[in-house]
């Protein structure tokens, strides 16, 4: 008798709880694999050699930022032609000066790398949000270099996995 009731209870619960198929399933991310992510790093990979390239890039960038002798934080010391007033993302709409470092590198056209004032955060409402100025060109290069590094590391990992599994 008890088993009968138990079974009927289970059956009724299962019948009542209708699990609908998912309507919100995203399409599989591998649907478009035939078009694929075209990896643009083939020529870059050939040129780069080992990962000295990524360090070179980082070191070059740091040297650009540090080389300029007019690297001030004080408003009064900024040369008038270099002063660029950047609007700040605050409700008060204060304008703060930004450092403008003109960089000329060999045959390449001059690139501007500007760093906003990294002021103290004692009064948040008046201070600009901490930010960095990079051109899109630099940003794209950094992403490409990071992806190459990631692919090399993944290849290394795959090799280790296969060695482990193959034992």
């Amino acid at each position: 008798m008890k088993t009968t009731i138990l079974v009927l209870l289970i059956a009724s619960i299962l019948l009542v709880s209708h699990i609908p198929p998912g309507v919100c399933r995203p399409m599989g991310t591998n649907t478009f694999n035939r078009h694929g992510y075209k990896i643009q790093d083939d020529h870059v990979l050939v040129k780069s050699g080992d990962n000295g390239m990524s360090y070179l890039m980082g070191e070059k960038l740091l040297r650009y930022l540090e080389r300029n002798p007019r690297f001030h934080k004080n408003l009064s010391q900024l040369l008038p032609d270099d002063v660029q007033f950047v609007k700040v993302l605050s409700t008060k709409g204060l304008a703060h000066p930004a450092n403008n470092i003109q960089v000329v590198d060999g045959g390449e056209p001059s690139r501007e790398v500007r760093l906003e004032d990294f002021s103290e955060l004692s009064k948040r409402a008046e201070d600009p949000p901490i930010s960095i100025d990079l051109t899109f060109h630099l940003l794209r290069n950094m992403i490409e270099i990071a992806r190459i590094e990631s692919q090399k590391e993944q290849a290394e990992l795959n090799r280790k996995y296969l060695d482990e599994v193959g034992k």
Partner: protein
Amino acid sequence: MSVAFRVQIYFFLICLSALKGQSRYLEDNDITQDGMFSILNSEIKRGLSEGLLYRRPLRCIDMLTMEGQFTFTADHPQLHCAVFFIGEPQEIISIEYSSVNIDCNGGDFIKVFDGWIMKGETFPSSLDHPLPIYDRYIDYCETGRLRQAVRSSQNVAMLFFRIHTPGSGFTVTIKKISNPFPCNVISQTPEGSFTMIIPHQHRNCSFSIIYPVEIKISELTLGHFNDLQVKKPVTGCGRAGDFVELLGGSGVDPSKMFPVADLCYSFNGLAEMKIGCDNTVVRMVSSGRFVNRVVFEYRLLERPELEKQKGNSVEDFCYTTD
């Protein structure tokens, strides 16, 4: 009826009821790629993963796309450092501190920013992110010691730090967490494809490509599919209702970019657009009443394509053509 026969009848009844709930379809979300075979591989994976954490030094200005452990040690005072994190579109970033040796009272800081901020412009924009800009900075000196790990809301994040004393430094461990419905993505590559889905959420999502690209939208679904596959038309655009817009600009903030096109109605077919801007964004505005979906591909616009059309370009606006 004998007991054995009754047991068989009951078993049959239970089986029938279970199958009625359509649970006979094993649902695989593709979120964990291991699927059902993870149990078999777990031993191997556990043994390997401990020894295979990627480690390297962190630079003052750096870009990270991988998981791993990154250590920064200042050999001279570093006052303006920024590290960018970017993952795949369906990943979010988790940052955990360890071995932090900085002088918070002496002006050192380490802050994680939820998104990217460049030249004062943020991605996602302040319209698309739930928090105001100052709340998107999480300062280690204020809260880091209490927190386990900081998670971003999208596939990008940043770290800002300043260290005065040589020899001080810190270590961060980066992990990627899967995000089944990505909203607000920056693409790592100038070419690829993406499906953006906003399932019954009142939010706006942007997909940003920091290259001049040609976008091909192959499917746009704005509205609700009922069982008869009839699409309810959405009441026009004009910044109301659910729609998709294409934006072009030279900053990272989608709210400061120029709208190039609005797509207000569902369609199934190819719509192409070339946007010759440094940053191209596909943005979907969703009211939350429907399940909205857009499927698109993008490819880099090569220099000859950009230069050919420059003669017709409008002043102060990136070149666009249909």
